[in-house]
């Protein structure tokens, strides 16, 4: 046998093996999370190695505890879900409102300082969020904005803005200029061109960016921790869950139920729009 054949055959098998390994490694933790969330803690202590939920063992008491309001002896996650939802949706919508015109301008219009804008976004990326967090922490303390969801939304916008503008700009650049020019000849103004020509064409990319922004805002932890920690009724799901672990002995199974509650919306959203996202995130990546 020659080397080519040996390599081809062995690589074919290796490839299958590696794919299987990747699947296990990426999916297993989520499966484990789900299994633990529906097992009673006593059963888990008896048999920590089990990976199936025994018949009659299944319980949803963990979810009841997590979701019920604190007055009813639960952990009040329904409130947290509402907070997270409001913050994430508001941040997404506002980011798009700001980023779409910005990205269009950088992609299409020649104006003084256009190159500097590019540099600005790169520079912003370089700075640790903890550097930004300190003065914001100070300002929000002084302005008594700490504990306000509005302040958090503002920070999230600034966090998602650079990547959103970058992704949208790449997409706007792929739209043929001639389309816009013909609209201009037909008498459309600049805003009319954006609204009637560019926006509809860029819709897939805008959806991808919206999903990305939503995920960032829903998953965010540090700023929520810094700004909201004193106000339990304003906690987001991420923050509520992390503080639940610090508190008095909460069974691990309840924590896992909380984790499922936190993860599920993102996973559903993700699988519903996977194609859109992977293509949106990397469109323009080939340019390196």
């Amino acid at each position: 046998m020659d080397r080519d054949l040996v390599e081809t055959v062995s690589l074919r098998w290796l490839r299958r093996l590696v794919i299987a390994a990747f699947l296990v490694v990426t999916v297993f933790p989520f499966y484990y999370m789900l299994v633990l969330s529906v097992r009673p803690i006593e059963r888990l202590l008896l048999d920590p190695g089990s990976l199936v939920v025994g018949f009659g063992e299944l319980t949803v008491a963990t979810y009841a505890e997590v979701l019920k309001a604190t007055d009813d002896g639960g952990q009040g996650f329904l409130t947290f879900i509402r907070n997270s939802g409001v913050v994430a949706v508001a941040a997404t919508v506002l980011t798009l409102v700001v980023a779409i015109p910005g990205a269009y301008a950088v992609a299409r219009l020649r104006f003084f300082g256009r190159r500097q804008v590019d540099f600005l976004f790169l520079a912003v990326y370089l700075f640790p969020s903890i550097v930004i967090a300190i003065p914001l922490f100070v300002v929000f303390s002084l302005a008594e904005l700490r504990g306000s969801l509005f302040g958090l939304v503002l920070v999230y916008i600034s966090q998602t803005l650079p990547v959103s503008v970058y992704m949208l700009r790449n997409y706007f650049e792929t739209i043929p200029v001639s389309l816009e020019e013909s609209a201009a000849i037909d008498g459309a103004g600049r805003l009319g061109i954006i609204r009637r020509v560019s926006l509809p064409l860029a819709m897939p990319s805008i959806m991808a960016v919206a999903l990305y922004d939503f995920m960032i805002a829903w998953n965010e932890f540090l700023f929520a921790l810094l700004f909201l920690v004193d106000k339990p009724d304003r906690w987001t799901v991420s923050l509520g869950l992390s503080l639940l672990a610090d508190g008095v002995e909460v069974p691990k199974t309840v924590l896992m139920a909380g984790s499922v509650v936190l993860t599920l919306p993102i996973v559903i959203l993700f699988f519903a729009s996977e194609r859109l996202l992977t293509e949106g995130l990397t469109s323009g990546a080939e340019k390196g």
Partner: protein
Amino acid sequence: MTTTAPETGRSPTGERPARARRRRPLTLRRRESRAGLALVAPTLLVTIAVIGIPIVWTVVLAFQRVRLATLRKTGLFGDFTMDNFDRVLHTPGFADTLWVTLVYSVGGTVGSILLGLVAALVVRRPFRGRTLVRASMLLPYVAPVVAVTFVWQVMLDPQLGIVNAWGQRLLGWDAPVPFLSQESTALTTVIVFEAWRYFPFAFLFLLARLQAVPGELEEAARVDGATPTQRFRHILLPQLLPVIALLGVLRFIMTFNKFDDVYLLTGGAAGTEVVSVRVYEFLTARTDIGAASAQAVVLAVVLIVFVLIYLRFFGRRVG
């Protein structure tokens, strides 16, 4: 640091073209320039207000003696002092923290890129269920950090965790291993977590690049008798190198600045304290804003130095 920070804070006002004195129809070019500035203004405003100004302010705070309690009395340009830096640089554990951050960043970066490269290579060609596999591979990256750190904590738990249960049963470990709380394993575990969580990022970029490699290139090499590994080494790898170099910078920057992963996994215990976690401790536990800022500035300066060195070596490839 001092050269880049004012750049980001520069306001757009100086760049606005002077208003036309007399009402005269604007040229198309002028109108385009105006529209451009108007459209980009909100983006600039938010970025400068919420990112630019805070960065500059952190630098200012780093040179002042500020605590949360005394904040209202401190003016913005009060007495400047090098005290904070002195304190930060001489507090025990500073050098360790910096070293840990470096090891963590390099380990996490290399790990995630390697895993991402392997993942991209194996799902490159179509097969049944490829879409599902590709989507699953992105799960660690899109899932909320709080949830995934918790699952890892529980999986690795000495009493309840499945890793220890199986390790003892199948691999014959004598005693449960407290992965996240003993010095000998904690940092490695955190790095492995980092590689696991962020390999999808590298995977996406590398896969996109792989799919843009023209098929004829490989075909030609095959006709010339190149084996699969040779084709990878001499055809694919050179095509991927620019992306790998770019990923190297991006991942390094992101990991170096990372706070939540380490904070949630170990809280910075057992020799895993990275600079971000330390800054957070100064800020909240000690409410020593001056020292926290100084520490953050040191973090940013070190990062910029590393990135500059990196760009010197790989700059041509990244560009």
